[in-house]
């Protein structure tokens, strides 16, 4: 029988983080990039809660609430940027954001 230890939580958190980073780096659609960013944030949440359970204090959980609040605000702003982007470019392809190309 597999005993679920802290390590499992951390690994899961790391895996989700990694998936999120890869999503940010590779996906073409801006909405998917924003979803990947949410995934990164939630992975970090998982890590925080895991460490809170291990060490017994509530610091991790409180910090996780902060992160969730922060993620919500960020999602709102990000979607606002997305709407503005879509209004300008008529597309949600992130490769179109290349005005700084030489």
């Amino acid at each position, binding site marked *: 029988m597999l005993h679920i230890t802290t390590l499992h939580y951390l690994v899961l958190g790391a895996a989700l983080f990694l998936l999120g980073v890869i999503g940010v780096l590779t996906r073409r659609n801006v909405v998917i*990039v924003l979803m990947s960013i949410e995934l990164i944030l939630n992975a970090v949440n998982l890590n925080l809660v895991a460490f809170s359970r291990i060490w017994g204090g509530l610091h991790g959980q409180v910090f996780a609430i902060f992160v969730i609040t922060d993620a919500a605000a960020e999602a709102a702003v990000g979607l606002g940027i997305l709407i503005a982007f879509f209004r300008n470019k008529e597309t949600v392809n992130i490769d179109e954001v*290349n005005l700084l190309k*030489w």
Partner: protein
Amino acid sequence: MFFLTHIWLIPLLPAFGAAIMLFFGRKLQKATVSAVCVGTIVLAFLMACGAVWQYSAWSSTPENFHKPYQTILYTWLGTDTGHMNYATHEGSQAAFQADAGFLLDPLSSIWLLFVTGVGMLIHIYSTGYMAHESGYYRFFGYLNLFMFSMLTLILANNYVLMFVGWEGVGLCSYLLIGFYFHRKSATDAGNKAFIVNRIGDAGFLLGMFFIAWIFGSLRFVDVTMLARHNAAAWMGNPYITAATLLLFVGACGKSAQLPLYIWLPDAMEGPTPVSALIHAATMVTAGVYMVARSNALFVLAPKSMLVVAIVGALTAIFAASIALVQNDIKRVLAYSTVSQLGYMFLALGVGAFAAGVFHVFTHAFFKALLFLGAGSVIHSMSGEQDMRNMGDLGHRIPTTHRTMFIATLAIAGIFPFAGFFSKDAILWETWSREGGAYRFLWYIGYATALMTAFYMFRLMYLTFHGRPRMSHEVEHHIHESPISMTAPLVALALCAIVAGWLGWPHSLGGSDRFTTFLEPVFAPESQVLTEEGRAGQLAAGAKEEEHNTGTEWLLMGLSLAAAGAGWGMAWKNYRHADKGYTEPIAAAAPPVYDTLLHKYYVDEAYDTVFTGRRKLGDVRLGVLGLGEASSWADSHVIDAVVNDVGWITRLTATISSWWDKWIIDGIGVNGPAILARMLSYPARLFEWGLVQWYALVMTAGLVGFVFYYVYH
């Protein structure tokens, strides 16, 4: 005492005549012009006689014994305000003053009498000689102006007023020499006379300034008195020597001594009466007068007197040698004048002031007579002046011939005519001066006397004897001159005979009234000179020679022998002069003849050195050539350096601007920019503008940090 107190009228009368000619002369008849101008001189002569007569009466009274008569009309230069004060060489204050004052003493009396007398005769002569000339009134105006200046010179009581007269006679000489101003040779001669005179005047002025500085006064009586009082202290004073030498330079210019005699022969371009009056009797004697007037100063400067004597003797023989071969009748007389003036300065230089003045006196008569006679000859020959074209005139113009013969006897020094006494007095005084150099001067004077006799009798024989050498139409026109011309000749001939008797020497039994008359002027100085001479002789340890009448008779005999020898040589060579006669000197020594004929090439030498008329190709010679050379050097060499410096500056500026534009701006400033651009090309390639690429780079950096913290 009227004539004496109104002595200032004497110069004013001819000035008045000149003024009338200046304002009204053109409209007057010739007869009026003659009456006015000749009349003023006749009046001046009569007044002069009166003045001298009254002066001798005045100066023989006990309180005025042997004093000069001075009358001052007004102060001309200088004031009483003290603003014209200056410091003399001792440091005392003196006021610069020159008055319009007149001085009459024995010296100026003599000059006054013969200047007005001979002037009067020449004015009368000119009425005949210039009768057919245009510009008659102009001639007489200038002549009167000349008489005014000469009389001012003679009668002045101070150096400044004398200088006014000095300049005035120079001006009139210029005007009268250039009288025929249509001829270039005449105007050139006038210029030459004035310019050479001016050189002398510079010396006169400097000498005058020295005298003012040393003595604090410019009046003759003051200077003479101071010089006599301090004779022992000031003997040989270098400043007085300088002053007298400078005054002598002035005399050289005016009285045509070496090296400033060159204007006198050329001055023969003027009409003959001018040559007679100015260049024989009066103006050229102004230098002698000035030196005689300053005799007190010259006595204090033995070196100056030696210079005067040597220059006089050398001039005498130099000019006499040139006169031996000249063909123009007036040139012979001109060089004769220079030579006789040399005699006068020789006399002054050896301290025989009275003898020098005596020679001036006699020379005035016989030289004026010679010139007027030459004028008469020229008049009769219709203007011919070259003696080679004359001959056999003696019986055709008898009065002229006889009077000129008398004058020739006088100038040659034949007893008992005038020249014998004066020339012999000079030679005797030269011989009897203690000191070796003076014997040598006597030899020079003796040789000159021989030459004088020769060239004067040569003139006589070529002109009046021999075969006629003129063209036929000239020969037909030969006639004796009118009485207006011959009367003065006769009068002057009488003077030439008699004038010498005034100085009949003691050794021949006479009383030598001339020297006695001049005693108040020269006696103190002769004493100083004799004592000086004797002191020098004793110091040299030589025996004091006794000069007795025997030596004097011997010297007289020698001069008569010289005169006779000269006459004899001329008689032998020229008595039968026909067409194409040979000159004895040319036959004996052609190069000597050529040198003498070309007047020792002195004029050419002066042209080369001073006037810059000689050119070597395009380059001028002499002093003016130096000036041209320096100006060429300045514009080509020095300015070239300046221009080159400017060119170098511009070149440097060009290089500097190129450096700045291409090197500094190009490499220094633009270089890094270009480098940056070059380097940024590859770097640019990394800018894709992709957001996810930025995110990847961020992530890579984060991973790097993590690895660093984990493995360090």
